[in-house]
Structure formats: C-alpha cells, structure tokens
C-alpha cells in the first residue's frame, strides 16, 4: 500500500493544462536539503517533491495544486523560487 501511488491516482481525477518546459516552481541546487525542503517530500499534497538516491530533493510540478504550502515553508530561506503558472495554465478545478 504505497501512499505515493495513491496520490497519483487522486491527481489523475484532476484537469491540468501543463505549461510544458516552463515549471513555475524551482529548487535551488543543494548538497543537503534544509529541514523544510526535506519536509516537502511528505507535506506536498500533490506529491510533487521527492528525494533522490543521493539525498537531494527534486520537484516535478506538473501535478501542482497551487496551494502554496511549499512557498510558505521554503521561499523565505531561498530554498525555492515560486511563481504562479502563466495565465490559463496549471490546475483547472471543475468543482473547487
């Protein structure tokens, strides 16, 4: 019972218009992730953050729900840069 697999199943229900090649969130290159950046691997409600085999944190923002949790935890320290997707792109809620 992998929770990571389950969140992908949840995201599959949603409608997205991905702005290919223009990720709206980027992680600053690092050797060792900060505590907050590491926490994103379990807090991110879309499971966008994951830990690589060498211990860094990477992001695939395609399934992003644009909630801003990572911005609240990681922007002030410079761990990430956060922008909204271009107008019209990103998650498109049918019900909200």
């Amino acid at each position, binding site marked *: 019972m992998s*929770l990571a697999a*389950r*969140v992908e199943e*949840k*995201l599959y*229900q*949603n409608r997205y*218009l991905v702005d290919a090649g223009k990720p709206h969130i980027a992680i600053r290159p690092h050797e060792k992730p900060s*505590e*907050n950046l590491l*926490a994103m691997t*379990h*807090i991110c*409600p*879309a*499971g966008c953050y994951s830990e690589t085999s060498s211990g860094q944190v990477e992001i695939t923002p395609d399934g992003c*729900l*644009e*909630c*801003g*949790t990572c*911005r*609240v*935890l990681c*922007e*002030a320290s410079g761990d990430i840069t*956060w*922008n*909204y*997707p*271009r*107008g*019209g792109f*990103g*998650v*498109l*809620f*049918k*019900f*909200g």
Partner: protein
Amino acid sequence: MIEERFDAIVIGAGMAGNAAAHTMASRGLKVLQLERGEYPGSKNVQGAILYADMVEKIIPNFREEAPLERHLVEQRFWMMGDRSHTAIQYRNDDFNEDKPNRYTIVRSQFDRWFSKEVQAQGAIVICETTVMELVSDAYGKVIGVRTDRRGGTIFADVVVLCEGVNGLLGTRAGLRPSPKPEHVALAVKEMHFLPRETIEARFNLHGDEGVVVEAAGVISKGMTGMGFVYTNKESISVGMGCLVSDFAENKDTPYGLLEAFKNHPSIKPLLEGSEVKEYAAHLIPEGGYNTIPELFGDGWVVCGDAAQLNNAIHREGSNLALTSGRLAGEAIFQIKSRKDAMTKQNLALYKKLLDDSFVMKDLKKYKDMPALLHANSQNYFLAYPQLVSKAMENFLRVDGTPKLDKEKATIGAFIKERKWSGLFGDAWKLARAWR
C-alpha cells in the same frame, strides 16, 4: 493591451474580488477585474458553505439564480476517537425557511455565476491573465499592474488586492508579509459523487435539505486540525486540514491523513460506493486577528484571505471575504464620489467600515484562540478526545461493574492524563480565549 484608465483594478475573481467588483461596477465605477484561471472559479477551492446574508447584501435575489446545492438544516460536531465518535448534533426544521441562512455550494460553479453577475453590472473581466507585479509611481503610490500579457501594463486609481491566501503581489511589493507556517492550515478535499437518493437516505434528508459534519480529535494525530463532510445535491465534499507547521513536524502526508479519515468507521459508511471526481488542496488563513496585515495604503486595499480575514473557530471565511470586498468597494465609491484621491489617508475609510462590521469584531473576540489551540494541540486534539471516548464507553457498556467504580475509573483516567491542575488550566485557558 488596454489603453484606457480604470477607476479600479480588482485582482482575482474569488468571493472578495467578485464582491468588490460588483459593488463598484453597480455604482457606475469603471472596473477591470483580472483572473489567472481559465474561467472565474477554476483556481478557487473551498469546503464549501455559503452564508446567505453576506451574498444578499450584494445580490438581494441571488437565491433565484445562483447555483446552490443544499440549505443546511443540521450541524454535527464529532469528537473522534480511534474507532468512535461522540457527537453534538443540532437539527432544526425552522431552517427549512423561505430564505435559508446557509447553503452548501460547489465553488467553481458558484464563482462562475457570480462573475456573470459582476459582468452584467458593467465590469470588464479578463481571465487567463496572471498579474506579475504592482506598478508604483516615484512616491510609492500604486498606480496600476503589469500582467503576463504583451504590453500588459494597465493603470487605475486604486488596486483592490483579492488575490487569496497565497497572493504574491502584495507580499512581493512589501505591503504585507507572507503567511507563516503556524498561521496557515493546509486542507485537502475530495468530491465524492453518489445518487441524490443515496445521500438523502444516508444523512436523513428530504429534498434540498443538507447536513454539515465537522470532526476533530484523533483523526489529526495530535495536530491542530479538523475534518469535514458536507452534503451537496449529488456529491459529498470530504476534507481534512491541519496547520502547516504541525505537518512539517509530523511525518504524515495530507492525503494519508485524508485516507485515514475516510476509512474511519464513523465516516466510511457515509461514502461507500461513491465515485471520486476531484482532489484539491488549499491553504486556509488561521492566524486570526493578530496576523491581519496593513489593510490599505496609497492606491491599494487588500481583502479576504489575502488579508488573513478568516474565523477559524466558526469555520467562516467566504463571508468575511464577501463583506471585506463589499466594504472596500463602498469605501472606494464614497471617496470617488467626493472626487478625492485614493490616498492612504482617504482609504482608511475601508478599515473604519471593516472595524465597525462583524468581521473585525469577531476576529478580535477570538484573537487568542489560534495560539492556544496550536500550543496545546496534543491535549485538545488527541488526549481529550480519547478520554471522552473512553468515558462514553465506560458509561454505556453494561458489564456488571458497579457504576461508582466506573465513574472513579473515568475520573482517574482524566487525572492521570492531565492532573487536576492541567484539567482546570486547560478549561480556564479555553474559556478565557473564547470570551
């Protein structure tokens, strides 16, 4: 993209933005509203409960046109144990009135309708446009916005920031700080679809009657947080939210917590056989009165979630957004009619109107609650619900133990957990913060 100059630019087409734009446009102001979603509502997430009074003040006959789900006749508060819940339920047939007080809604549908009403008043609404930054003059007065469209700088006398809890514009311009992890809750939600007869049978409803379930206790694993189940016409909104700072310390995932909530023996039968059609996440401002930023300045005002206007204790947010948006619109209209400038001094009128309304009075009343619940979350959200559950079980299970021994065991369990001083202290602190 637009050469003309506007009286006001409204950022965002959520509750606050639509209220502000409607209020100003209906009074004849030239209003431009910018929304980054494909259509108004496509980026908006809420539980969602709508409070009629606050909509009525903007669109008196909204009940005839607006997409509403169910009017609420019953509220359930559930204190969750591991496999139990202790409930306070209130149902009143008087809530089946001609003009019901509260409804469930589907946010993206409601917002789409609301925006059509705004446009009918003459406001120009442009979607699929992300505003990149506020534009200021040499003296620091906000005079317009720059968008992600070509040649996208637009000018106005005042910018109304209704950009939501995660608004970038105001924070980047240094008008307010970004929310802190201990002042925002992360909520996740799913939409579960079922035939309406099934929903009505499971929740004891007739016609368009609806029920709200708010649940707290062991489901948040000691974090400051709550779960909810709201009935819509043909769907059920199920969600769970906890403070971001608590999530950061705790190693649970929000979707794992939601799964556990859905699988709680008290919740599971309500959802059985449903088809899930959407999964959403959203931040909720929970810091209350003490975290409200500066609400106005030269050429700008801020409303709704962006201004942390949310009453976490009563689960009220959209009505504070509607009211703050409306009052901002009224203040701007008054200043404009006097032919005065949109200076900080003049826009203080917005703050005055807000201070005189329930918005600031309610938030002030509960100003100490967010910090108290956060600091004592292990007691209020984990220890007490478990104790209450055990006490109820002792009370109800008939097994030949004399009642006096059962009472002693129940009281003993409370004292062992918190001691007399802790019990009185917790009650006293809660009562004082509630006052």
